[in-house]
């Protein structure tokens, strides 16, 4: 029997980026907020200390700071007629566990989505006609526009200390920036990171082939930064250990390095670690959330009543919690009805390795140190006769030059033994690679539901992922990879190794951690679980954060939009508290 605890005003499920933002905003508004985190407490010192964090085997290979699949995982299949099996090792994506969430181990590649991304169905139909969208593609407009989100993107960028070069300030194109970006009200808080040799080559080559390269917006500080909350950040050392590692010197934005020093001092905020939320509780009507049930590390069960519940866990975990709590109509791919689990999407990346003639410095890295072209992202180019919609960016990232996983050796190099050593010796300092980071649309039969067979440690069914890449994505990735190869050819080189991704999605090799959807936002309760303010249509005091609400994915890393949406939703929550009604009436 769960022990019932005293009620709080707001309970947050998870304590990563979105929970930290919501907590900071709502406690500022005088509310009492509690965050429940299934993992442990972590801080820059001692957990990410420079004395041990740059250990690739421990963190990147053995995945020490990620979710433990022995505790929670999911089952997977490509198609509905297959048997899904549980993932016993993390592969294609790396959810986090612990305070800070994946905000601790991300690279810091921080983007705004394009204005057209938020109205993708309308835009596509208007520009290319309704026939451009295949019948089984279930993309939809977000219900929120870029212009509405602009101030909240800005808020997240000034929280994080984004280093970058603006491309469009109030409609005025800025030299050196991304000419395709939506207009921003002001420049980034910090100038771009320093460039490494490979990004200089990429920049020159991309210009030569007529494209518009610019420095990637980075949540790695190019200079010391005092953020919008008065929290001091350090300056990136280009150590190359961002992705899958915590930052040792406060220069990668994370909840720890930007919000927690202020948030944790507030008397109206508290958090509990090693508390796994297993249920969202509702009253008899099912229209009002009464709190959550969680299990602590001793296996004790508690009921935490709350007047408002906000789901801030990793993308799929929010969906899982809705499904096991029987909130909202579960999605049924046969009929196309239901919303929980609907419109799951992912991303499709491919790479082009280049062995340059010039000596490079690949060990000088930062998670978001890169030069990018956005010419083929979203609807920045004419898709007529291309055979696909949407797109992605092409980037030369120099996230690092780590010894185990970050050698981009020429085609045909042996993978082990003396031949491999010879290739590393001769080619490592000349090797680099480009990434095509493509969007994935949502489809009728790509979705999330509960697995009929496998259960987690609390006896709940595992989440089941049914997903594969479709024709649109295959055409898109081929196009992007060809464009990247064209840029590569303009770099003086000794060899190019293009590696397009083809066939079904495989969950085994790492691709990106950018899982989206499953409780989409939108204007229509029949196709979305939350309204444009991220408030549940069915249960107005329940809110869902994160990329869980993306109706389909875009060709960018999601964190910037996740952060902006959290600030946007926090504003709406403050309005809701004054007048607890659904914020959108239908």
């Amino acid at each position: 029997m769960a022990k019932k605890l005293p009620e709080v005003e707001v309970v947050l499920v998870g304590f990563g980026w979105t929970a930290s933002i919501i907590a900071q905003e709502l406690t500022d508004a005088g509310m009492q907020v509690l965050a429940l985190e299934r993992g442990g407490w972590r801080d820059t010192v001692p957990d990410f200390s420079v004395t041990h964090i740059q250990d690739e085997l421990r963190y990147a290979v053995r995945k020490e700071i990620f979710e433990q699949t022995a505790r929670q995982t999911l089952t997977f299949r490509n198609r509905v007629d297959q048997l899904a099996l549980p993932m016993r090792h993390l592969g294609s994506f790396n959810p986090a566990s612990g305070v800070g969430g994946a905000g601790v181990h991300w690279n810091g590649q921080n983007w705004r989505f394009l204005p057209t991304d938020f109205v993708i169905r309308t835009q596509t139909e208007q520009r290319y006609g309704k026939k451009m969208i295949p019948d089984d593609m279930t993309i939809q407009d977000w219900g929120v526009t870029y212009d509405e989100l602009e101030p909240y993107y800005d808020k997240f960028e000034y929280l994080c200390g984004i280093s970058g070069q603006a491309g469009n300030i109030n409609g005025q194109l800025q030299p050196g920036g991304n000419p395709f970006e939506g207009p921003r009200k002001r420049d980034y808080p910090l100038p771009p990171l320093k460039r490494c040799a490979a990004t200089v080559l990429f920049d020159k080559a991309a210009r030569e082939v007529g494209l518009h390269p610019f420095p990637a917006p980075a949540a790695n500080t190019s200079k010391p930064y005092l953020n919008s909350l008065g929290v001091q950040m350090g300056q990136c050392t280009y150590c190359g250990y961002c992705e899958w590692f915590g930052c040792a010197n406060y220069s990668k934005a994370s909840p720890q390095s930007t919000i927690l020093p202020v948030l944790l001092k507030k008397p109206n905020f508290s958090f509990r670690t090693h508390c796994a939320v297993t249920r969202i509780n509702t009253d008899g009507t099912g229209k009002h959330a009464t709190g959550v049930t969680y299990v602590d590390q001793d296996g004790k069960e508690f009921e935490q009543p709350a007047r408002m519940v906000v789901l801030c866990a990793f993308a799929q975990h929010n969906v899982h919690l809705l499904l096991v709590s029987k909130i909202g109509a579960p999605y049924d791919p046969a009929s196309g009805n239901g919303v929980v689990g609907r419109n799951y999407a992912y991303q499709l990346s491919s790479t082009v390795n280049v062995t340059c003639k010039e000596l490079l410095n690949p060990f000088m890295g930062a998670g978001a140190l890169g030069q990018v072209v956005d010419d083929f992202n979203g609807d920045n180019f004419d898709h007529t006769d291309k055979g696909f919609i949407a797109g992605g960016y092409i980037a030369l990232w120099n996230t690092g030059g780590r010894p185990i996983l970050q050698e981009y050796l020429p085609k045909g190099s042996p993978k082990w033994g003396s031949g491999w050593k010879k290739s590393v010796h001769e080619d490592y300092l000349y090797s680099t690679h480009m990434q095509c980071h493509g969007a994935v649309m949502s489809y009728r039969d790509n979705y999330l539901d509960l697995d009929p067979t496998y259960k987690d440690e609390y006896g709940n069914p595992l989440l089941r992922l049914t997903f594969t890449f479709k024709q649109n994505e295959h055409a898109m990735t081929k196009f992007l990879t060809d464009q990247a190869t064209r840029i590569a050819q303009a770099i003086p080189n000794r060899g190019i190794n293009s590696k397009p991704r083809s066939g079904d999605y495989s969950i085994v090799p790492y691709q990106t951690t950018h899982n989206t959807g499953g409780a989409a936002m939108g204007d229509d309760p029949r196709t979305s679980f939350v309204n444009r303010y991220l408030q549940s249509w069915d249960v107005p005091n329940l809110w869902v954060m994160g990329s869980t609400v993306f109706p389909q994915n875009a060709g960018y890393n999601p964190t910037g939009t996740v952060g902006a949406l959290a600030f946007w939703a926090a504003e709406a929550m403050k309005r809701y508290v004054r007048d607890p009604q659904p914020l959108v009436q239908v």
Partner: protein
Amino acid sequence: MNARVAVAFLLTAICAGTAISAQQVYAPQKPHHTWGDIERGKYLARAGDCESCHTALGGKPWAGGRAVPTPFGMVYSMNITPDKDTGIGAWSSEDFYRAMHEGIDREGKRLYPAFPYPWYTHVPRGDVDAIKAYLDTLKPVRQVDRQPELHWPFSMRSMLAIWDKLYLHPGQFMPDPKQSAQWNRGAYLVEGPGHCGACHTDKNFLGAPDRKNPMQGGFAEHVFAPNLGAGERDGLSGWSEKDIAQYLGSGINAHAIAAGPMAEVVQQSTQYLTQDDLQAVAVYLKSLAGPEASQPRMPHRDTMSEGQALYVDNCAGCHMDGGEGLANAFPPLRESSAIQAAEPQLLIAVILQGAKSPATKAKPSGLAMPAFGDKLDDVEVAALTTYIRNEWGNRAATVSEHDVSKLRGTLASAPQ
């Protein structure tokens, strides 16, 4: 009396009370205290950082039990909550004044001078009563005091009578009429409630402070608290009054970030001082003479190159190649008085154990440096600290492997 007049009257009374507190003389008072007394007491208790010592690590606030290592053994702080049996709830203001003024408790027992009554003796009766008035408002905690664990003969309290006779100079703070009111206020805070000299003034073999040369550096537990007097290298000559006020108020300025025991002092105490008081402290400190400048020899070339290699590998990422640090985030090591202090223990301790800067209202981040004690051995730390103390124009005595191993041992056995 209308409300506005009443407020004006009250404000005047409070201001006057603050201004004349140093001149107040003993007068029996009724145990009735105004809101103003209690607030002033709270302010003075913070200025004295009472809570830090009177709270055990992880213990209940003000209930004592914090281990204070002394060269003579371990002393534990007292419960000063108003609990009648185990705290000081039954103490009269006279009892409390005697403890503060003479180091004698309610039962007539002599207190160990780890309790800094040799400084508190300068605090006038009015201020002492205000502190007691504030302490009386705390939540009583029932917690029996822990007895000291001292080596013989220091374990005999009767020894303390001799100590007091030799070294205690009871008496209130007397303003120096030749100095400004601001200087006198600073002197009072530093020499009285602030008891800065308890750490920053050199002490003799019996732990008695060198009153003739105040604030020229001394040992605080096992690390050396740097010289706060003049000194081009190891003193505050390079700091402006504004720098000092900024450091005490926020924990950080262009020259330094508070580390070691001082981080706690800023966090718990000095950040709460008013700008006027911080300025007064700065004016007083800037008037102090420093020790005679020493002329240490340049270390051996091999030690310097070993230290440089270690510095580049371990330190330069944050403190930068030129030792200039990173403004507002990581302190400079170049031209730093703490780095060039007469004794190197603070620098060694920070490298071995790491450090966390104070998280103050002005600077909430509390950035930390990790511990390198597991990564670097004694020889390496000696070379590294010698290098840091003698590079970029710095100059200070060489650090030996023995210095490091000794401190490493002491820190390992220190109460956590």
